[in-house]
């Protein structure tokens, strides 16, 4: 194998350096944005009407997606885990397996992915179009900080609705698991619910689930608002911001999930 020419190697190193530098710069910008957003969140006035409106848009309007997905995922889990467990004669442990999987992992993660696709993209798109139509500048000219008026209510709403939506996803998932495992495949109903009750603990599984959904809510809210806020002021910029928000939120959510899972209880 022949060696790469020096100028090609240099080009590779330069490109890598440029990418790393711009990545670090983007992280720094995002950290500054996050600090400004949280600062605005904890300062008066608390815009209850706007927060309530955002809860409706991001939470209530996501209910059907979350409930249907939760039921479907629960049913799939019921069938798949039944097949695996029954090979070892452990089909009575279906409730335990479905419960732990849903509560600690699939509930918060899949809800996060669903919400980032539905509400996160809408959030980035809305703020991006406000940038493109100078609405944020309009607010600035009225001496109103867009961080306080636009970003903060969305962030608060997202952090508030994520644990609730995740809990709903888990409930419907457990119901779906019951439907598939107990009603269709004949697992004993008492052992299904008993397994869930004995395996799931508040301080371990539920707390981990809550922490994950709170972190995911903050991540989705921050990334979506940041991407929208920094969108180029044109149609292409808004569309790019929307896509980037969903991709970045989904990937960061999965990475954060690993760290929370790995560090939990250490």
């Amino acid at each position, binding site marked *: 194998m022949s060696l790469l020419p020096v100028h090609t190697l240099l080009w590779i190193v330069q490109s890598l350096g440029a990418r790393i530098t711009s990545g670090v710069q983007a992280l720094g910008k995002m950290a500054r944005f996050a600090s400004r957003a949280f600062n605005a969140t904890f300062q008066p006035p608390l815009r209850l009407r706007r927060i309530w409106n955002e809860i409706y848009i991001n939470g209530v309007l996501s209910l059907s997606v979350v409930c249907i997905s939760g039921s479907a995922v629960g049913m799939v889990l019921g069938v798949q885990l039944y097949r695996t467990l029954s090979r070892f004669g452990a089909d009575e442990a279906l409730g335990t397996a479905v419960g732990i999987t849903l509560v600690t992992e699939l509930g918060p993660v899949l809800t996060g992915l669903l919400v980032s696709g539905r509400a996160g993209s809408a959030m980035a798109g809305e703020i991006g179009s406000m940038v493109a139509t*100078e609405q944020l500048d*309009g607010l600035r000219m009225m001496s109103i900080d867009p961080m306080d008026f636009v970003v903060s209510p969305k962030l608060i709403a997202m952090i508030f609705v994520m644990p609730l939506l995740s809990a709903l996803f888990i409930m419907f998932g457990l119901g779906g698991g019951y439907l598939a495992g107990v009603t269709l495949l004949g697992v004993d109903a008492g052992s299904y619910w008993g397994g869930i009750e004995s395996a799931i603990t508040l301080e371990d599984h539920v707390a981990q689930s809550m922490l994950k959904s709170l972190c995911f809510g903050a991540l989705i809210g921050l990334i979506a608002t940041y991407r929208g806020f920094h969108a180029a002021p044109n149609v292409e910029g808004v569309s790019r911001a929307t896509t980037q928000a969903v991709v970045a939120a989904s990937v960061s959510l999965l990475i954060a999930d690993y760290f929370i899972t790995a560090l939990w209880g250490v």
Partner: protein
Amino acid sequence: MHDLDRDVPPTPEDHPEPGEAPAHVDVLSLRLDFGSRNVLDGLSCRFAEGKISVILGASGVGKSTLLRIIAGLQKPDYGDVWIGGKEITRMPNRELKDVRQHIGMMFQHGALLDSMTVFDNVALALREHTNFSESEIADRVHAQFEAVGLRDVNELLPGELSGGMKKRAALARAMVAEPDILLCDEPLSGLDPIAVRMIESLLADVSQRSKVTMILTSHHIGSTLRMADHVIYMVGGAAICGAPNQLTRSADPRVRAFFEAAGPGEMPRSRLPRWEDAR
């Protein structure tokens, strides 16, 4: 500022006065590059208190950029903007917010908040910065609607307004807090000729009634000649300033070419219809 018949750029102490009025906004030696493109190249000009100043120039020459710098929405690479004796380009955001409470801005496309009704849009600044009761706010908002000729728009969303109505709603929002300075970015663009005359009359009427310092951007020569007390013609990143009749007789070929493109038949301001009659 390259004043008429004079090539030496003035210092802040050496500013010629546009008419008799003292300067309210002073722009000194602004420089701004967008990448490799130079937009403002040492531009200086001043805007007289209580007068209508129109920033004129070809599309893409940097008129809106200059207006955004005056509003503090954009930082220049170099240069100062003085508003009421305060330099704003290096001012922290908190202080800038205070300065902006005395400035109203009418954006090119209105910039009304899509998610709010027209009434809430206009009432927003009052709700945020005053202790007025809701009935006082409603009275002030309706007075602005009346002044700009808008009726039955309280519950409408900005998306339900026509172009001309959107401009008028934007003007009502800009004026509701009774600013000292009104910035209007292309208030006449995208309107039919009748709507242009209506908005022109409306702006002239607002200027006359409120004595606000009005700074407009436009590439509409006819309207500029009818409305303006003072014209800032932007070319090559610099400004050529003067009264409308001075600029129309300018010896500078760039200015002459621009004004000759307007054609004959421009109506002087004295013949502009009154706003009440126009609507």
